[in-house]
C-alpha cells in the first residue's frame, strides 16, 4: 500500500508542473495586465508603467518569467498580485473561507443523499421514490444563482421580517467587528452559512442521491443479499450491515473526489453570496489577467485534488478487501 501511495504521488508531481506551464503560457499570452493603467485619464507617467512592468517581470522573456516564478514558489514565495498584494496570505485566507462553506455543505449533502438514495431504492416505484426522484432532478437542473435568489427572498429577507430580527444573512461569511462571546460568534457564522451551504448542498445532494439510489438498487438485487434474506436475517440487519455497507463504497469514492474538486471554490455560489473564497479568487485572477494568483490557485487546488484522489483510492481499498488482495 505504501509503495502504491508513493508511486501515485510521484506521478502527480510532473502532472501538476505540466499544468502550471500550460496555465502560465495561456495566461501570460491572453492580454496585458496593465491595460487599465495604460488607459487612465490623466495618463499614468510612462516610467510608472515601466516600473510596474519590471516589478511584474513583464519585461522578461516568458521562459525566464516562468523559471523565476517556479524558483520562488518552491521557496514558499507565491509572488504578488498585479496590485502588489502578497499572494500567499491572500490564498490561505480565501481557502479558509471556502472550506467553511464546502465542508459543511458536503457533510449535509452526504447525509441527505444517503438517506434519500437508500429510501428511494428500498421503496422503489412508490410515492417516496417518486418524490425523491423529483427533488433530485429539480435541484440537478436548477441554476445555483436562481436557487440563491429564491433562498435570499424566502429564506432570509421574509424570514427575518417574520422573526423581527436578523437571523439569516445574504452576503459575506461573517458580520464585521462582531462583539460578544463564542455563542454570538457561532450564531453569526451559522446565520451566514445557512443560505450558501443549503444552495451548495442541495446541488450536490441531487447528484449523490441519484448515485446512492442506483448503487443501493444494484446491491439489493445481488445474490448475497438474497442469501442473507434466505438465511433468515432480520430486515434491518440485511439492509444496514450487508446492503448499505456495500452500497456506500462507490459513493465514498465519488464524494472524496468531488470534495477535492470543490476546494477550488464554488465559483457561482461564492459570487452570489459575496463570499470571498477560492472561487472568487479564481474569477478575480482570470478577470485581471493575474498570473501569480492563477498559478497559486492552480497549484493549491491541483495538490488538493491529487490528495483527495489518493484518499479515495485508499478508502476504496480499506472498504473493499478484494481491492487490497487483488
Amino acid at each position: 500500500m505504501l509503495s502504491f501511495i508513493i508511486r501515485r504521488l510521484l506521478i502527480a508531481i510532473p502532472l501538476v508542473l505540466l499544468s502550471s506551464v500550460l496555465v502560465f503560457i495561456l495566461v501570460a499570452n491572453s492580454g496585458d495586465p496593465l491595460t487599465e493603467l495604460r488607459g487612465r485619464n490623466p495618463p499614468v507617467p510612462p516610467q510608472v508603467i515601466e516600473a510596474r512592468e519590471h516589478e511584474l517581470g513583464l519585461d522578461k522573456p516568458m521562459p525566464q518569467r516562468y523559471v523565476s516564478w517556479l524558483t520562488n514558489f518552491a521557496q514558499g514565495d507565491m509572488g504578488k498580485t498585479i496590485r502588489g498584494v502578497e499572494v500567499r496570505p491572500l490564498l490561505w485566507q480565501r481557502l479558509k473561507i471556502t472550506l467553511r462553506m464546502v465542508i459543511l455543505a458536503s457533510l449535509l449533502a452526504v447525509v441527505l443523499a444517503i438517506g434519500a438514495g437508500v429510501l428511494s431504492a428500498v421503496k422503489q416505484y412508490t410515492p417516496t421514490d417518486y418524490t425523491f426522484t423529483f427533488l433530485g432532478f429539480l435541484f440537478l437542473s436548477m441554476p445555483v444563482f436562481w436557487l440563491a435568489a429564491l433562498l435570499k427572498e424566502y429564506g432570509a429577507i421574509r424570514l427575518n421580517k417574520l422573526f423581527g430580527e436578523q437571523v439569516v444573512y445574504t452576503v459575506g461569511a461573517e458580520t464585521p467587528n462582531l462583539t460578544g462571546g463564542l455563542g454570538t460568534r457561532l450564531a453569526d457564522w451559522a446565520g451566514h452559512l445557512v443560505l450558501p451551504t443549503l444552495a451548495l448542498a442541495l446541488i450536490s445532494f441531487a447528484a449523490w442521491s441519484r448515485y446512492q439510489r442506483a448503487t443501493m438498487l444494484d446491491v439489493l438485487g445481488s445474490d448475497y443479499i438474497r442469501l442473507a434474506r434466505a438465511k433468515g436475517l432480520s430486515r434491518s440487519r440485511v439492509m444496514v450491515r450487508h446492503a448499505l455497507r456495500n452500497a456506500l463504497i462507490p459513493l465514498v469514492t465519488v464524494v472524496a473526489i468531488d470534495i477535492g474538486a470543490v476546494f477550488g471554490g464554488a465559483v457561482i455560489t461564492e459570487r452570489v453570496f459575496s463570499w470571498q473564497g477560492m472561487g472568487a479568487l479564481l474569477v478575480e485572477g482570470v478577470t485581471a489577467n493575474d498570473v501569480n494568483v492563477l498559478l497559486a490557485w492552480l497549484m493549491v487546488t491541483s495538490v488538493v485534488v491529487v490528495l483527495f484522489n489518493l484518499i479515495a483510492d485508499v478508502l476504496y481499498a480499506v472498504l473493499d478487501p478484494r481491492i487490497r488482495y487483488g
Partner: protein
Amino acid sequence: MHRLRSARWAALLVGLALIAAACGGGDEDSGGGGGEAQIKEGGTLSFASDQEQAGFNPNTAKDNLFALSNIVTSIYPSVFNIHPDFTVQLSKEFMDSAELTTEDPQTVVYKIKQNAAWSDGTPVSADDFIFWWENCNETNKKADCVSTTGYKDIESVTGSDGGKTVTTVYKNKFADWKSLFSQYIIPAHYGKAQPGDWNTGFDKNPEKIPSAGPFIVDSYTAGQSLTLKRNDKYYGTKAHLDSIVFRYLPESTTQPAALQNNEVDMIYGQPQLDQVKIVEAIPDVTSQINFGLQYEHLDFNTKNPLLADVAVRKAFATGLNIQQIVDRTVKQFSDKATILGNRFFMNGQPEYQDHRGSYGNGDIAAAEKLLTDAGYAKGGDGIFAKGGKKLSFNISTTQGNKLRETQEQLIQAQAKEFGMEIKIKNAEADVLFGEWLPKGNFDISNFAWVGTPFAVSSNQPIFSTGSAQNYGKYSNKQVDDLFTQAIQELDPAKSAELGNQADQLLWDDMATLPLYQKPQLIGWRNTYTGIGDNLSSQGPFWNAGLWAQKAA
C-alpha cells in the same frame, strides 16, 4: 461587467480540466439629501463596496481606485474639495488660505491651519506637500505617481512659519493649480519611516496610518471589511458617527438584497434596471439616480479615409437621433437624463455651454444633403458611396455592456435611414482600451470619458495633436493653441472661456460626438441624515464627518 477573453477561459478550463482529469474630509457643508433632521450622536453605517483597495496611497497608480477615495477622503486632508455642484472650494477646516500671489512666475502660497495635525501629533506641514511634489515631479524615476500633471511644472516647494506656510513657485504656468495638493495629502513622516516609502510604505497596517480627517482606520480584514472609527484627535468638527464599515461585496447584484436585509445601510454604483426597481421598492431607503462628470460619446477615427472627411462625420452626427438613444437607455433609470452639448463641462457646472446646435436631432434630410453636397451618391442598397467606396463603418464598444450594445443597435438602425452602413464589432474592455483604440483599429467607438472640474488639463491629452489618448487622431492647430493658452491662463473664468471656445471648434469639426452623462445610483437607509451624492472624483463620502443617525 467584463467578459473573459477566450485565452483566459482556456486557462480557466485547464485548471478545471485538471480537476476533471483527476476525478477521472468633512468640512464646510453637508451637501446631503438628509435635510435638517434632528441627529443622534454615535452609531455605525455599513457601506457595500464593490471594490477592495490595494494600498493606502491614493497618489500612486497602484492604489488609485475609487474604492480607496471613498475611504481616505475621511482620513487624508485636501487643500480644495470638489463639492456636489462641482465647484472647487477651499477646505476651511484644514486651510486658512491658498492663493495665487504672483502670476509671473506663478506663485501659490498655502497657509495651513495652525492646529491642523495628524492623529499622532505631528503637524500637517510643508513636509507633506514636499513629499508629494518630490515623488510626482518626474525627478524620482522610481516613484509610482498616478499623475505628474502640474507637479512637473513646479520649480520649488518651500516651507516657512514652522512649516505652516507653503510656497510653490512654478517654472511653467499651470491654470488648474487648484487640482494640486488635493485628494489627498498623505503623511510624509509616516511614509518615510516605512520600508517602501512612497511606493509601498502605505500598503500594510492601515490602522497605524495617522489621520488628519474626521475618521481613522480602526481595523481591516482583507477580503471582508475595513472599519473607520471617529478620529477623536481631529482638529476640525468631530464626526457624528462612531464608525463606518466598508463591506467588500464584489458582486453588485447582491447589494440590493443586502440593503433590504439590513446587512448594509448604503449602496453606490452604476445602476442596472432590475436593481433600481428593487432599491426603490425598499420602504425605509432613499435612492437617487444622479448624473455626474462621466459621459458617453462616440469617437471617430480620422485615419479612416471616409471618416477623415468632415462632411461624413457631420452627416452622421446630423442624422443621428440622440434623444431616441437617451430615451431607450438612461432615461429608463431617470427622467433627468438629457443630451450632452459639451465635452469639457457637464450639465450642472456653471461653465457649461450647449454647443450641440443642430447635431443629434435625427434630421435625415439634412444629413443626406450634407453627403450629396460633398459628392456622395446613394447606391441601390440605400448606402451612400463616393469613388466606389461605401459609407460602411464598424462601431466598437466594450463587449457585454448591455446598455452600450443597445446604443449600437439603435445607431445601426438610425444610420441605415440616412444612408450609412454600421457593423457592430465589439471587444473585451482590455482589448478595446489596450489594443484597438491606442492602435487605431476602429472606425467609430462608443465609450465614456471621466471628467473633472479641471476641464482644461484633463481634456488636453484627449484632443491635442499627437497625444496618446487622442485615439481618433484628430488634429486642429487652433484647438492645440487654445489648450496651450487655457492651461497657462491663470484667471479661471478666462481659462474656462478658452475651453469653451475649443469645444465649439470640436463641434464644428465633429471631432467626437458626446451623447449623455452617465447615471449613478445611490441608496441609503432613512435612519441616517446628511448623505448625498458627490459625482466628482471625491465621491459620496466627501462629507462623511457630517453624516449622522436621525434622532428617534
